[in-house]
């Protein structure tokens, strides 16, 4: 654990897939839990499909630091095809974990990770999202898995805050609230640690 | 255009209070001063105006600190920004009027020479026209950058001598034809666009200025405003030059109202362009033996443009 309960996340995704949105959602959820947060993407001129990185700092006090996160506590990979080209676990804290959106098992994914010997977590966010929301919106399951694995937020409060936030966000479409909550709960249960 | 007068009472228009006073530092016989007076005279006396201005002869001469030649409010910001600056003034008026902070009718009229209008200020003019601000942009077109010493502009006619299109043994003055800015502005589909100059009892200029100012939305007025220094003619010859510009069809008078083209004046007998050119020193080299082709080219160009205009106005 870093000072003041600081927990740092790095997100890997592709432009247009929602890694930045998921990062902002995590910041939002942590803010609701009374934390001090940072959620910021690393910007380039790249368009849809290019690898992108986003970061979170979650802490009990305000973070004054404003640089990228080279040594995160957790890495979340929104698109498993990135594992072939991006060294996603670079700098990852040995006590941390990598969380990958995949239908594969942690064991299968480990084979693609170069030097990483720590925990490998998997979540089939695509399937969960399709089952609960009818479409591939992996953000809610990914967020759920990241919170579950990291333990950065207290479970009950997180779930309660998310429900309120969905009600607020989808005020015009209440059916979407139930779908998102189902996605969140299912991901919470299904995330595999290996 | 409910605010425009149906009939033109020349003497009544001259009894209105002068809104552009003497004491400015324009040259003796300058067309810009005549244009500004003529346009501002079209304002209803009870209306206020904010006058804008691109940098140029008019600006450096009509507001030389602490002497403004304008009865109305006036703003100059830069050479290329007259359209945008007046857009900001008009936007402010809309906001302040809505909030009850400004009362009464205020009109927005900006002046620019051909440098500030055809060239460096073209982008901000185009933006202001496209956004639909309720303002009138008036170009006093003297066909070169007179303020900096008669350099060529995109409005300078072909073969005219200017200090950056000089006449030499290899190149006979400006090589390109004049840009048709009025047509370009008409292509912005603004409600009112017109071309005029100084003629007779100023009916054409006055009524066009009035329509431009009182048509809601953006309007554009292009006024041929001769420059005795740059065009090299004796200052008192200005009325004759304007008249010949129209009679030769070098500077046709027309309006484009809501996209419909109207010819304002058709000469009974189109005069040869040579008569117009001969009065001006900037075309002197065209009359040298061996250069007859230049006059022929100039005539051909005027004829072509005139035929195109006639087609538009009949279409």
């Amino acid at each position: 654990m870093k000072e003041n309960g600081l927990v740092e996340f790095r997100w890997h995704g592709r432009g247009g897939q929602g890694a930045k949105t998921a990062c902002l959602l995590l910041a939002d959820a942590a803010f609701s839990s009374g934390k001090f947060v940072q959620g910021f993407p690393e910007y380039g001129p790249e368009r849809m499909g290019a690898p992108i990185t986003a970061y979170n700092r979650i802490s009990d006090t305000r973070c004054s630091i404003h640089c990228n996160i080279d040594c995160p506590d957790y890495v979340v990979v929104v698109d498993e095809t990135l594992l072939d080209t991006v060294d996603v676990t670079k700098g990852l804290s040995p006590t941390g974990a990598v969380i990958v959106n995949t239908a594969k098992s942690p064991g299968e994914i480990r084979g693609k990770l170069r030097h990483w010997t720590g925990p490998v977590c998997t979540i089939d966010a695509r399937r969960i999202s399709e089952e609960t929301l009818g479409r591939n919106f992996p953000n809610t399951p990914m967020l759920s898995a990241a919170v579950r694995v990291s333990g950065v937020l207290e479970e009950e409060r997180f779930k309660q805050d998310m429900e309120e936030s969905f009600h607020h966000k989808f005020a015009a479409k209440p059916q979407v609230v139930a779908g998102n909550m189902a996605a969140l709960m299912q991901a919470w249960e299904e995330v595999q640690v290996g | 255009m409910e605010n425009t007068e149906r009939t033109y009472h020349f003497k009544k228009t001259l009894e209105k209070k002068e809104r552009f006073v003497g004491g400015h530092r324009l040259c003796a016989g300058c067309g810009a001063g005549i244009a500004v007076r003529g346009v501002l005279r079209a304002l209803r006396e009870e209306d206020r105006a904010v006058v804008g201005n691109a940098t140029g002869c008019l600006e450096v001469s009509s507001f030389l600190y602490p002497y403004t030649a304008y009865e109305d409010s006036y703003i100059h910001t830069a050479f290329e920004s007259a359209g945008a600056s007046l857009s900001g003034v008009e936007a402010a008026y809309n906001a302040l009027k809505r909030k009850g902070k400004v009362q009464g009718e205020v009109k927005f009229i900006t002046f620019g020479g051909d440098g500030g209008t055809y060239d460096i200020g073209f982008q901000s003019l185009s933006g202001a026209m496209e956004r639909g601000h309720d303002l009138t942009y008036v170009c006093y077109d003297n066909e070169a950058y007179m303020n900096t010493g008669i350099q060529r502009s995109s409005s300078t006619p072909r073969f005219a001598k200017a200090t950056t299109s000089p006449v030499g043994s290899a190149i006979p003055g400006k090589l390109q034809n004049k840009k048709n800015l009025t047509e370009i502005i008409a292509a912005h589909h603004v409600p009112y666009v017109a071309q005029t100059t100084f003629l007779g009892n100023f009916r054409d200029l006055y009524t066009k200025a009035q329509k431009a100012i009182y048509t809601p939305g953006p309007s554009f007025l292009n006024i041929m405003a001769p420059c005795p220094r740059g065009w090299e003619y004796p200052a008192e010859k200005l009325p004759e030059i304007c008249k010949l510009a129209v009679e030769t069809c070098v500077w046709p008078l027309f309006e484009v109202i809501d996209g419909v083209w109207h010819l304002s004046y058709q000469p009974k007998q189109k005069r040869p362009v040579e008569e117009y050119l001969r009065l001006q020193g900037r075309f002197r080299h065209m009359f040298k033996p061996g250069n007859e082709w230049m006059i022929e080219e100039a005539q051909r160009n005027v004829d072509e443009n005139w035929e195109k205009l006639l087609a538009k106005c009949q279409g």
Partner: protein
Amino acid sequence: MNYNERLSGNEAIAFAMKQIDPDVMAAFPITPSTEIPQYFAQYVANGEVNTEFVPVESEHSSMSACIGAEAAGARAVTATSSAGLALMYEMMYVAASSRLPITLACVNRALTGPININNDHSDSMGIRDAGWIQIYAENNQEAYDNFLQAMPIGEHPSVRLPVMICQDGFITSHALENIVLLDTDSVKAFVGEYRPEHFLLKAENPLAIGPYDLGCHYMEHKVQQAEAMKGAKKRILEVAAQFAALTGREYGLFEAYRMEDAEIALVLIGSSAGTAKVTVDALRARGIPAGLVKIRVFRPFPAEELAQTLKNVKALAILDKAESFSAQGGPLFAEVRAALYDLEPRPRTVGYVYGLGGRDITPAHFASVFARLEAIAAGGELGPVYSHLGQRG
């Protein structure tokens, strides 16, 4: 009246603009400030503000339109970055010399070329001598707070100068962070109404603005501007005091962080100051007397106040997030060093140019600078006074 939220720096500025509800906003999009007019256009579309939004065709025109609007008697705002600010260059001078207190949200970005969209301060530093008050933020909170203070500073009759509120592109503009907001009524009461004495639309008398100034008047007008800029310090501090009374958040011309007994220190601007604070804390934990000064107000430049704060420092590094290609350091270095010239003894100073085009700067970088300062303070050689930090090779 204070409440907690989480907003990016751009959202914070747009929200401040919404709370102020200016008369005119004229803007043209450019990364990374684009979100500000986007958010604002949505407020306009939703009828949440009573502002005339002018979506101009260039930044040159956005500043021109702001000048027209402000001269007309309206409160005008805009936002831009990088090449957009560069395109405004001429009009920035016109705004300042016409004494029009326009407020510009500058989201700092590197200047082309090669083209680069990330943060450094070359845009606003390039225009530092245009006559605008410049206030820089470390984070979203400061960007918001500074924006609320801009109009009470710039519009005050003793000042009448335009104000640029700067924050670091992407690093704070696109970073979601906690922020404490003021309720809108308090914002409106704090910012007040814009009541210029003379304006183009005033019914009682006309106003002519933007004359040709002959040599016999031009210098006098420039002296007026210079005097106003000198006097602006007082107003900036008055407004800061009023703001502190309202929010509890205190601001000065700069922030002196752990400077009381500091023997080695950094001077820098913007978000990197927050990162450097982490290094200062780490050094302090080891008993090393490190501190830093974060410049908030760069124009007017707080020279006397800096000299007072830095007089007991033995070794000082001044870090510029902009090149000036002077071949002897960046603009902040030049000005801070000049400010210290009359001190006896004076701190030994070195200058770094860092973070260009978004080059990331970490606590480790600052640790290396402090290590050098420790050696200098202990009587070691000064070494090169002008160098770069964070580049390869």
